[in-house]
């Protein structure tokens, strides 16, 4: 569901600005919008979780439990109450950050999520930085020198990257670089205990950097190579092509000619004058990509057994662990809306013409 059309890139109430008046009103509206979307996500997933074919109480009680025990568990979980009461209780819990307990891990879901979050954030932050940096750079190069061998290569990467399913890219990398020639670890994330690194942030890369242990840092990076390559290869196409088209459009504008006529150096014309205008649509698109990233890493985490939110959601799905599934859905939705409203703010700083 990748929207490349310019007009469909703006998500949320921001695209109707007739009634906005000042930053405070915008902020309040953004917050209201966040509430509406999250409430919709909660309600939808709640309704869905109550039509689950499997009986959650039965699952929670375990296979050996007798009918009495199942009834007891049902009462403990509040599943015997009317659905409306359950819904209100769930919402009440959400306000205090309580997503209920996981049937699978028998812990509060929020604890599981906090445990899984650093691993996902590590993947997202590293891959997003590379997508943004590399994508913008390659897009500029492509726009400035549109002919030549490199442009053919970039076009192939752009088309192949978006047409190859992400799970297949991951598998190919495993077959090519890990399974047959043992260059890189085939799956799994950094093992803190094996390298005697303290778990401070939970992210293998950060913790090994803090420990200043070279072999641990190398190992943490080696673990990241395949999953990051998979994500970047799949997602860089959009940034790169959008940057190219936006940049080549700007380079033809009169103000660029004027700057050149004034004797401004080529590198300044491109990186200062044209880049600032060309970045606008790219920033919006990157914001959308960042918003989707929490949902987007699921497949990559599953292929590479990366213990983040995506793998957690996948295991929860397999065990019909409905509290966990709901929590991940809610958090992924909320982060999408939040990131988008933040990006809209940045967008306005970049281009003050947009009110």
């Amino acid at each position, binding site marked *: 569901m990748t929207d490349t059309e310019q007009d469909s890139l703006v998500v949320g109430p921001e695209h109707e600005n007739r009634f906005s008046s000042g930053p405070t009103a915008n902020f309040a509206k953004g917050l209201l919008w966040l509430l509406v979307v999250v409430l*919709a996500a909660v309600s939808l997933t709640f309704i869905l979780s109550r039509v689950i074919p499997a009986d959650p109480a039965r699952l929670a009680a375990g296979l050996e439990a007798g009918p009495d025990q199942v009834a007891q568990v049902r009462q403990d979980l509040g599943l015997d109450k009317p659905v409306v009461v359950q819904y209100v209780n769930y919402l009440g819990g959400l306000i205090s950050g309580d997503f209920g307990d996981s049937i699978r891990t028998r812990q509060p879901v929020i604890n599981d999520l906090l445990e899984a979050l650093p691993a996902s954030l590590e993947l997202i932050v590293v891959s997003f930085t590379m997508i943004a940096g590399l994508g913008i750079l390659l897009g500029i190069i492509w726009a400035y020198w549109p002919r030549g061998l490199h442009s053919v290569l970039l076009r192939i990467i752009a088309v192949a990257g978006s*047409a190859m*399913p992400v*799970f*297949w890219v991951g598998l190919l990398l495993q077959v090519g670089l890990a399974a*047959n020639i043992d260059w890189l670890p085939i799956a799994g994330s950094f093992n803190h205990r094996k390298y005697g690194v303290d778990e401070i942030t939970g992210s293998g890369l950060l913790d090994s950097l803090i420990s200043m242990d070279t072999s641990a840092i190398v190992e943490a990076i080696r673990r990241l190579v395949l999953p990051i390559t998979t994500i970047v290869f799949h997602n860089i196409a959009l940034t790169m092509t959008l940057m190219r088209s936006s940049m080549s459009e700007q380079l033809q504008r009169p103000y660029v000619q004027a700057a050149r006529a004034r004797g401004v150096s080529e590198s300044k014309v491109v990186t200062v004058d044209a880049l600032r205008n060309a970045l606008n649509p790219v920033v919006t698109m990157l914001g959308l990509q960042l918003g989707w990233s929490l*949902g987007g890493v*699921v497949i990559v985490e599953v292929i590479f057994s990366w213990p983040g939110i995506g793998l957690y959601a996948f295991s929860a799905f397999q065990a019909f662990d409905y509290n966990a*599934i709901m929590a991940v*859905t809610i958090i992924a939705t909320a982060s999408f809306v939040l990131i988008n409203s933040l990006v809209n703010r940045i967008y306005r700083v970049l281009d003050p013409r947009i009110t």
Partner: protein
Amino acid sequence: MAESEKTARRSVDPLTLWVLVTVLFLGVLILIPGVLAPHDPYSLEVSNRFAPPSGEHLFGTDQTGRDIFSRVIHGAKYSIGSALLIVGSASVIGTIYGALAAWYGGLADRLLVRVVDVFLAFPYLIFAMAVAASLGRGLNSTLVALVLLWWPSYARMVRGQVKSILNEYHVMAAQTLGAKKSQILRWHVIPHTYNQLLVRFTLDIGNALVALTGLSFLGLGAQPPTPEWGRLVAQSKQFVLNAWWYAVFPGVVIFVVVLNFVLLGDALRKRSTS
């Protein structure tokens, strides 16, 4: 210039030929796979498990000795058929919804747009997992989940288009002549959205195929022994070390089909804008 264009039109137009070949080939794959498949996609031949690609088994065999080439061919109706179904339903629902929103305008429009925005904010993969977990695993619940998440982008696109078409002279002319509202919408507005809709539809078949195979890779879609393409790649995962062909060939087929639709969509877009 105009003369040379005319002669070019009279000879076979490469784009039309491309569309015809694609439709014909996929039609054969979906409707009569038996014609192309050399083996039965379900027949086991355990003595011949993990046979590498050969003249007899073009794509090799899997862990139970089934011919992967035949399984891929028979899988087309599940994978491409589902992608067509998803994009088809989503575009019909989205078109009607978007056209109505644009047509009524005012408060109704604003409300309808908000609903679309809410849907667009859902992370599709995780949401599809939630839907599949509640409706039960299987191709049908995955189809429901994807249609549920796919129609809003059509609604948004069609709404924007209808809004701008409503301001055009031919609509005003029809209004002046006393045409009924429903007639105007049906005969003077919606047909003008078909061009962009077709471009989007073509591109989206590829996108839907990627989304669907991704979900069934996670075990949400078709269940074994259905030779759905994402499922085939998923099953190959545990044999990556001893049978590279199992992971590679079904993936190549997905890639080539998606690529075909992406390039075809691009070509259609270029034609409709030029």
